[in-house]
């Protein structure tokens, strides 16, 4: 097998890995402000894709408008989840809230199934479907879109969290809710923002991925699982770790399928995850949690 094959594995891995990474990013944003693992994260990705298809096919709105509307709608779905499901129950323990998110994910999936049926859908690619050839490997223009948009999202999140007052406020909430409240941060608002931002990131992921990965009402289940694994690999709570974890998982899967055996592709990725949990439980880029006594 020549070098071009390996390059092809790398490119496919990075493209699929971006999916996992974007889902993982969403997990991290909510985890950072609330300590909740939001298991409806995969559903945001599904909604991003399905709503884009919905606006495009049923209302003929054109691709850019459809995708923008899908992202906006999903962002409001994120807000609604916080207001209707999480905030009324916020006095409960974290584990209860996590279970609520599982319930929410089943609800969203059920509604999507009733509204759009159980078929798989596709979106047109953003800029043609002639593959570009590079050193013997074929790259779809859509893959480049995905990688570039993923990077852009990462960069803007970095700026948001380190430079803006809201971003800093959200980070402060993750360290200590009570202290943040005392210094005048509106914790409820920060939690609401975190749900909206992670829904938005998920929806963008869903919209840009659908042209090559297709989507259906239950696409969120596996994405949620893989995204969560990516979080663990990268270290829960670290946005860059999450994105990197996603890319690593994607590349591992692709090389596992190409070089070792395609029958054990998923097993291979989870095997690496297990080893990592034994060797470095905090994840590749995670910090050890320190408890002060």
């Amino acid at each position, binding site marked *: *097998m*020549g070098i071009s*094959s390996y390059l*092809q*594995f790398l*490119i*496919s*891995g990075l*493209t*699929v890995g971006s*999916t996992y990474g974007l889902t993982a990013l969403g997990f991290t944003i909510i985890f950072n402000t609330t300590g909740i693992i939001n298991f409806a994260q995969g559903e945001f990705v599904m909604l991003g894709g399905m709503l884009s298809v919905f606006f495009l096919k049923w209302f003929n709105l054109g691709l850019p408008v459809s995708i923008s509307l899908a992202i906006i709608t999903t962002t409001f779905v994120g807000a609604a989840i916080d207001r209707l499901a999480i905030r009324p129950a916020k006095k409960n323990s974290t584990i209860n809230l996590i279970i609520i998110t599982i319930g929410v994910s089943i609800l969203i999936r059920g509604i999507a*199934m009733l509204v759009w049926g*159980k*078929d*798989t*859908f*596709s979106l047109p690619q953003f800029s043609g*479907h002639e*593959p570009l050839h590079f050193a013997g490997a*074929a790259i*779809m223009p859509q893959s480049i879109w995905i990688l570039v948009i993923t990077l852009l999202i990462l960069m803007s999140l970095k700026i948001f969290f380190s430079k803006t007052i809201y971003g800093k406020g959200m980070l402060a909430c993750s360290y200590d809710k009570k202290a943040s409240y005392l210094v005048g941060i509106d914790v409820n608002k920060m939690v609401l923002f975190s749900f909206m931002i992670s829904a938005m990131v998920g929806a963008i992921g869903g919209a840009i*991925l659908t042209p*090559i*990965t*297709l989507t*259906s009402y*239950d*696409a969120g*289940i*596996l994405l949620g699982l893989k995204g969560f694994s990516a979080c663990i690999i990268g270290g829960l709570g670290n946005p860059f770790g999450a994105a990197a974890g996603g890319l690593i998982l994607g590349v591992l899967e*692709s*090389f596992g*399928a*190409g070089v070792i*055996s*395609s*029958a054990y*592709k*998923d097993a291979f990725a989870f095997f690496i995850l297990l080893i990592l949990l034994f060797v470095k439980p905090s994840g590749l880029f995670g910090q050890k949690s320190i408890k002060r006594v």
Partner: protein
Amino acid sequence: MKKIYLFIITLFFSCMLVSPALAEETIKIGAILSVTGPASFLGEPEKNTALMLKDQINSKGGIMGKKIELIIYDDETDVNKAVLAADKLLKKDKVVAVIGPTTSGNTFAIEEKFEKAGVPLISCAAAEKIVKPVKKWVFKTPQSDRHAVSKIFSQLLSKKIKKIAIITVSDGFGQAGREVLKELAPKMGIELVADEVYGPKDTDMTAQLVKIKGTDAEAIVCWGTNPGPAVIAKNRVQLGINIPLYMSHGVASKKFIELAGDSAEGIFLPAGRIIVAEQIPDKHPQKAMLKKYVKDYESKYKSPISAFGGHAWDALMLVVKAIETGKSVNPADIRNNLEKTRGFIGTAGIFNFTAEDHNGLDENAFEMVVIEKGNWKIIKK
């Protein structure tokens, strides 16, 4: 006065409770279908078809003057739910025959119950193992993988292609296909140079295809159901692989062409005649009934036809035929008359059941088609 009112009201309600029992006697036929869950793309058209057919039969006066009562349970593509549904149908509803389940796994889980209860089960699932070895009470309507594989292989041999790569999905459908592919290839003088697998929810198969590209395969055979094969079709075009791609009958639906778009062009697959009903010659025995079914279904449900609904059509009609020929609704008589069915024109092909063959179809149930300009075209040899 109050007592009289009470009496009237009680009488009224008890009449309402009793009235179903007083209604005319019906023939109860059960159905276990995966209307929701992963196999819903199969189960939903099956349910629609069964309901439509029931209405058509009942509006014409039913069978032997009795209306059909169809009791449908959704197994949600879940084995446990299928088992529960089978118990309900056999013990509570006391049906005379059952059509379904939709998937092979669910059929395996419940067939033993039907053997014990002595009620015929006409499965809408494809796996060959359902009827091989023959079980006394179990029949199935879809064509077997064996028929599809030998159809593909004969076509390959006619093009002098002897080396192929296979890529199969790691679910029941794909793995059953893989076994038959591996079994029949050496028998027909075809060499498998690559044997790749992908997951049912995978979204990128370039790794597997790159591996296949590195071999000297002259054709690729892919065994799977949507959406995987659509992704493979796209990846194949992306990687510039020029050798012909053969798909299974599992993607013989318009959805596949919609999902794969331009990448679907030039793909070969064996398909039941239902999807090419327009193209088969007028004198073909299946032509008239297929055209009617396609027209009825599409006008009633406003969604395009697929081969899957046809499996339920065949199953229910076979039961109806068996009841009509035997003039009996006794499950044992239905079974015996089912086994005697010869030359029954169904959607999947022409059924000839025997004591050794509870599928009743052969390779001729398929037409080889190629996808051209977003539609199927029958290849004439």
